């Protein structure tokens, strides 16, 4: 019913996991999940899955270069661009643009993360032309009318004011600002009140011109269409974009401040903890082993070590997790939890002890067997809707894993040995952590000012 919150047994964290995990596929090979490579006349590659049984088309795309392409003094440009892209384009004003989407129940969304600007469209088959005409307009001729810019700016500032006192937000911002001081990753993706207040329409336009280009583009399309039609759609939407992006170079980086604990005072009953250290790059030969190690430590099941030790045995937290975050220019291992103020120290100690224990002694044979079995068996669950398939296919392309990765991936998991995970557990977990804690002050936690 409507009146209450829906209370889940456990929060899941699909966002982060998707980045890292993304890459499984149904073991049973079926015609409906076979991936075809489509190349359009102007040379744009798209991956297609034909899905005849549902009357919709899902298209996902991404350009490399997300918030890391924000001008140095203007964090939030990519985010603001994403928020404004459906607010009028070509000769269609914002109101009309939204009405045209709504009149045909077309779902269109854009988002920016640290490394990508991405979008997705979902439409009923009969409205295909309208949907992709509107997408093309948004990508090639966004208006950024002052009415829309000011209206969306107001919304974004409202969100930022709202987040400014959220312990989760503060803990995360502080972690990234410390770990990547001076690097684009240190700047908040959504920007700051100061930067978002100052962003101009010209800056938004400049961002789209630099980033929206065919050489940075990955596309996937799923639906009841054949390769010829898919090619026609992709060509129509994207062929008008410039051939080459003009991305500012982003330096490779490693997280700084490892070994520090930063405490920030906020009068909330529950303290929020964010931890993170160096991870393993997606292309590193050890990535799959690291992925298994993370699953054993704090990945997505009710059986991870952190879940057992922090939640199940001690009742310290509702949510505790860890994940691999392989960004384009830095590889991270991150985790987090939230617990009442007077148990924050104890919880942190348990977290760090479990991480150290896994680094030192590695997983057991049984843990490895179970983890492999889980990771292979949960493949299909990532591909059971057209929308999910489209998203996964874009991620595989962004990670540059090859169209056959889907078939190879289970073999890669299977090939990992106990020696591999023991070695990689040490490599992944022994490098020290930067910790941010936001909550009521506790003894033993250095506050931000005197943290060292």
């Amino acid at each position, binding site marked *: *019913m409507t009146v209450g919150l829906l209370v889940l047994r456990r929060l899941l964290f699909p966002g982060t996991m998707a980045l890292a995990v993304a890459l499984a596929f149904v073991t049973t090979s079926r015609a409906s999940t076979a991936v075809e490579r489509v190349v359009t006349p102007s040379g744009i590659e798209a991956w297609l899955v034909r899905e005849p049984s549902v009357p919709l088309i899902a298209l996902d795309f991404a350009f490399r270069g997300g918030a890391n392409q924000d001008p140095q003094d203007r964090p939030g440009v990519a985010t603001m661009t994403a928020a404004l892209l459906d607010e009028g384009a070509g000769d269609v004003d914002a109101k009309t643009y939204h009405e045209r989407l709504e009149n045909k129940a077309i779902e269109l969304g854009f988002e920016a993360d640290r490394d990508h600007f991405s979008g997705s469209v979902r439409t009923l088959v009969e409205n295909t032309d309208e949907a992709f005409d509107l997408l093309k307009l948004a990508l090639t001729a966004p208006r950024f009318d002052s009415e829309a810019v000011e209206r969306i700016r107001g919304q974004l500032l409202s969100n930022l004011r709202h987040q400014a006192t959220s312990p989760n937000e503060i803990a995360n911002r502080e972690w990234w600002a410390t770990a990547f001081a001076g690097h684009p990753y240190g700047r908040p993706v959504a920007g700051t009140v100061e930067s978002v207040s100052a962003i101009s329409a010209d800056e938004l336009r400049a961002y789209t011109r630099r980033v929206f280009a065919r050489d940075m583009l990955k596309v996937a399309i799923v639906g009841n269409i054949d390769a010829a039609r898919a090619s026609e759609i992709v060509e129509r939407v994207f062929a008008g974009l410039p051939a080459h992006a003009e991305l500012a170079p982003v330096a490779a980086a490693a997280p700084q401040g490892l070994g520090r604990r930063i405490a920030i005072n906020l009068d909330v009953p529950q303290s929020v903890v964010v931890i993170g250290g160096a991870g393993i790059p997606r292309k590193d030969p050890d990535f799959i082993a690291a992925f298994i190690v993370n699953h054993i430590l704090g990945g997505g099941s009710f059986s991870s070590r952190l879940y057992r030790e922090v939640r199940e045995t001690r009742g310290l937290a509702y949510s505790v997790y860890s994940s691999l975050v392989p960004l384009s220019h830095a590889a991270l291992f991150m985790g987090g939890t939230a617990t*009442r*103020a007077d148990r924050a120290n104890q919880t942190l100690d348990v977290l760090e002890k479990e991480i150290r224990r896994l680094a030192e002694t590695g997983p057991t044979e049984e843990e490895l067997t179970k983890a492999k079995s889980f990771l292979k068996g949960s493949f299909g669950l990532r591909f059971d809707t057209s*929308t999910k398939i489209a998203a996964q296919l874009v991620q595989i392309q962004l990670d540059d894993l090859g169209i056959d990765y889907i078939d190879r991936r289970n073999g890669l998991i299977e090939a990992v040995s106990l020696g591999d995970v023991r070695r990689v557990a040490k490599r992944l977990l022994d490098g020290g952590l930067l910790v941010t804690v936001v909550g009521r002050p506790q003894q033993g936690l250095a506050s931000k000012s005197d943290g060292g």
Partner: protein
Amino acid sequence: MTPTLEVRFLSRALRIFAVTLAALAVMTNGKPAQAETSGPNVSHFTLANGLEVVVVPDHRVPVVTHMIWYKIGSADEPPGKSGIAHFLEHLMFKGTAKNPAGRFSQTLATIGGQENAFTSTDYTAFFQRVAREHLPMVMAFEADRMTGLVLSDANVLPERDVVLEEYNMRVANSPEARLGEQMTSALYLNHPYAKPVIGWRHEIEKLTSEDALAFYRRFYTPNNAVVVIAGDVTLEDVKPLAEKTYGAVKRRSEPGLRVRPQEPEPTAIRQVTLADPRVGQPSLQRSYLAPCYQTAKPGEAEALDVLASVLGSGSTSRLYRILVAEQGVATNAGAYYSGASLDPTRFGVFASPQPNVSLPQIEAALDAVLTEIADKGITPEELTRAKTRMVADAVYAQDNQATLARWYGTALTTGSTVESVLGWPDRIRAVSADAVRDAARTWLQKQRSVTGYLVKDWPKNEAPKNPEKHS
């Protein structure tokens, strides 16, 4: 909470009340709906012990979503035991005589299955998503824990701490959620929907194993449950499996009719204010007591669904267009209605003012929009757009077996039927502009409502003398 949290701008999703409305949004999925023509071939049957089974075939990939829904939620709790439905949901993972603690989850973790559970005012549900060949196994586990649960203080007490941390995360740490609790309680004068689903903190702290087991023995019985299986299965696959697993569970109680104390006719305009120094963006919310699909006259809940869409769903909606785009007094505004409940529900509207606009000013602007729609009704374009959107939602839902499973589970635990779900798009198509106007006139009357102000500072001279810590 994820370190890589991203802001996503869906064309229709308004973001400002993300925390509170995300939960509501999940629930609005509970509206009965399904595509009319090419939809799944849904079937259902009832076992001799009273358990109802719904099968929603989706043969695209060899995966199934298996859910069991108990017709028991926070509104069915005994007085003084708020939160017991949700606490029991957590404790259902603590093992049975046959399958000791952890075995079910360990097994799922080994085969790559996903699992979770959730509680609301009218139902408690558990689900697994697995490769199709594991369906018999999860059905056997789930049938076993319908009556076989074993609890001890050693696992109950730490889990109560877990629930208190969940309370801290969802409520105590969130000014929006704390205002929401107060508003809900002010809206319902007599009905147990007044209580938070997670419970009042002082009562959660005192819940015991005995409380949980008493609740369990009374309400967890096959004649009080619905199993929904969506995915790569057929009725022929499921029927013998259901007989063998759930069919072997004896009915062990008669929970009886779900008759809760009902609301008197509301007669006063209620206003609540919550101040928290952490409120960086003030906001206004209002809830009207409104009929649900179960209690409304024919067509009335459908009209309320259309009204919520026209009034407050997305950038073309009245509230967004007038308050945000035309007048520029709000940074965001919208409306929602979730009719899938056993007893009268609420119709909600909300707005966040621009920095130079006060909450009374935004309230006046909001009231003007509501008055206009009650006086003059909606345009044919607005009506068509809302219907198109809602009927399309039912088609989009076919892409997601878990969504479909959820729709049927919600419907069948809130007094609705499979047939009613199947007929929903047609009933939406039949809604007239007059019916929408009448729904606004009848139900959006201020004396039926509670208005909540979320502010940073208490009004002058009204600050509490001994501000209470919330934990």
